[in-house]
């Protein structure tokens, strides 16, 4: 009772891959020119071409928030946008917020409140929280929880994330 599933041949041969070209990106205050195809996402451009692997890939479909970066101060999922669309934009990744020796207040609060375990969603959480601070919309615990809910954390560090963000919000 078997059934044959035969694929349909590609008519006229396979479409050639799209060619690459120079793309100028302003990342963390520095301008660099990357050789990219137009189909390269901002996330892949950051990780595979600019070698800024702090920005994480968790789903590549805008479902988890691990790839959150700041574009002109606004938080976006970098997997859902193409690198070529951001030539004139100011892109900030986790590497641009602070370094291990000079952590930003949010980064330090995340460490102090143990707002992560494995650390994989953390750069996205922090970029998202930074964007939330820029939005000036987080006035209560409920608001922080709701507005940070686009960032999944499978380790379940949400309580620490809330407390870390709250600490920085309260100091503002």
């Amino acid at each position, binding site marked *: 009772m078997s059934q*044959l599933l035969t694929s349909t041949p*590609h008519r006229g041969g396979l479409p050639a*891959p799209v060619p690459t070209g120079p793309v100028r990106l302003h990342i963390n205050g520095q301008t660099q020119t990357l050789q990219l195809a137009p189909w390269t996402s901002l996330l892949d451009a950051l990780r595979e071409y600019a070698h800024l692997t702090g920005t994480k890939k968790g789903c590549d*479909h805008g479902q988890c928030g691990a790839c959150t970066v700041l574009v002109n101060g606004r938080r976006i999922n970098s997997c859902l946008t193409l690198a070529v669309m951001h030539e004139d934009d100011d892109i900030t990744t986790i590497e641009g917020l602070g370094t*291990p020796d000079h952590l930003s207040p949010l980064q330090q609060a995340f460490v*102090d409140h*143990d707002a992560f*375990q494995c*650390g994989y969603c953390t750069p996205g959480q922090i970029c998202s929280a930074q964007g939330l601070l820029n939005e000036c919309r987080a006035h209560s615990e409920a608001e922080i929880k709701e507005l940070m809910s686009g960032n999944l954390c499978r380790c*379940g560090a949400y309580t620490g994330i809330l407390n870390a963000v709250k600490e920085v919000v309260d100091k503002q």
Partner: protein
Amino acid sequence: MTQTNHIGKGANRVDGPLKVSGTAHYAGEFNVPNLAYGYVVNSPIAKGKVTRVHAEEVLGLPGVLAVYSHENVPHLAWFDRSYKDLLAPGGSPFRPLHTPDITFNQQPVALVVAETFELARYAAALLRVDYEQEPHETNLGTKRTEGYLPGGGKLGYAPPPPPRGNPEKAWKNATHSIEAEYAHGAQHHNPMELFAATVEWLADDKITVYDKTQGVFNVQRYLTGVFGLSKDNCRVVNQFMGGGFGSGLRPQYSVFMATLAALELKRSVRVTLTRQQMFSIGHRPNTLQLLKLGTNPDGSLAALQHHALHETSLFEDYTENVVNWSGMQYKCDNVKLGYQLAQLDVYSPQDMRAPGAATGNVGIEVAMDEMAYAAGLDPLEFRLRNYAERDQNVDKPFSSKKLRECYHEGAAKFGWDKRPLEPRSMRNGHLLTGWGMAGGVWDAMQMPSRASARLTADGRLLVLSGAGENGAGTYTIMTQIAAETLGLPLEAVTFELGDTDQPQAPLQGGSWTAASVGTAVKNACDALGQKLLKLAQKQKDSPLQGADYDEVEFVNGQLRLRRDPDQAVVLRDVLQASGETEVEADSTALPNMLKQNGYSLHSHNAVFAEVQVDEDLGTVRVTRVVNAVAAGRILNRKTARSQVLGGVVWGLGMALMEETIMDHKFGRYVNHNYAEYHIPVNADMPDIDVLFIHEEDDIVNPLGVKGIGEVGMLGVTAAIANAVFHATGKRVRDLPIMLDKLL
């Protein structure tokens, strides 16, 4: 005053600054030179065979380097044993690209390798594969009568103990009795980090493998077995893992594929799975449980029967301990536990956080709640009446068991004494409030482990053990143990892990890392300490002359006499005066079987949960959880609390959200992505209280630690399910509890 007492305090994670700044590197982030990218193609059918892979078409695209499938995969190891990793269950392990046969949906059938990730993905999307499809079966419900006893079990599996007493007669004669079936579907680990392997090609048959794994030595064993590499030429590294929860215990096909391509192409290759492919690498199995409980007039348990049936693949007998816990959790003289598997056309299940226990715990703890109501007793009072002072499965006392304290302190914190017994008795408008509780038990285990320690003349201590860091806090607690053992500040100690060039550590799982690697680290530091004492005693006029090791202590950078702390030498001076540039020691730590043999070793917890159910909409919100845990010594209160908080989140997800839904028509998971496989988000968080119950235990291991990662999840799901019953009067026995089941 000692500033170098670190154990038990809540130090910040020592790897925290790396993780929050994006400078911790995970497996798919090693940008080695001349890297090619692989993209996996998976089967859309559940059963049948591949009849043709049209590789030649995509190989014509500029930049596509290779297509690997069963049609061209080179000769690899012949025997099953070469593919068996440390956690392989009975049967024949899955061999990627080995045959044209398809035995589960999403089975990898080809790897496309190209110069860039985008190109590999493009070519993989265009690759035509022809199949011959055969009828499949993925529905466990059709196998109710076809369960069988598993063959050879995997590491840690124990068949259920034989029945005791006369469980069937006792159940029939019981004053009150219940019988119910409980079920949950497949669940997937879904760690945030995608499975990835970066294989750096160094020379012919010489590679370094950066792999997402919970055991670098396990991956090394697998790769050397399958590809015929020597251990020296196959170094496996994992310094940070973006969550595992069991999914990384066994080597995954990502590392097989990347290694295959690297060896064939003689260049470095990275393979990263997609989120969709993360649903093809193992899961908590779809399980059916039948519980029969009965009570005597005084509320004591007269009979307890617990039987479980779960799915496995056609090729392996995946096993986990589902029902055994029920035989030790409560005092009962008439007990029957059963455990069977059924084969379906699915991939082999895989250990997922608290494997077996998380499933069995829902069965026994919801059944206990039902039994309490049938007997007219408060669920906590019912558990206290049936408290097990001994492990009746093996007829041994517990090495320590502070579950009673968990119950009492948890109940007090929660306010359980104000709970009306009657369901639907707490209402606020259209919101029904319910309170539920449950308990949990997990093994306290220790695995053989090695570690080394080296003190250099600048006063710095380097400690090595090839363990894993998947978020549990391994870097931090090992640093604490080493620093306290040799009386150093945390800043003077570096602990490194996750490299097969380091002393061998066990798999990172089972909540045994703290006990296993921790003891090895302590032993290595003690061995180093003994060398340091000898060096100190070689010095003229040493105040430590004649002292034995147990007569001295390391505190605040000094080595001093316990009975006369003024008789001290500075550690750094000892090394400098000796003329040595460094002193090193290593050690192996094994469980003390002689000491442990007479006891049953376990951690326990008690969970209290409050839910609010919208009577009109059927929506459930968890509003409060108290989780009281007795798990021996807590090494770091901050990271341990985080693990328990995470356990609550996992239990909440299992209770209300998580289910990988199988479309039996296609034999395929239909919600294989993060948008439709729901896990809790920040807005779902209740107020969570974590209580650590003081528990001393010098039998489990010298550190007195039992592990916390699994036990913290137990009880949560059942407590929430029981709270939903208390709120609504409706007993939902198939998880997750979605609103349609309450309307």
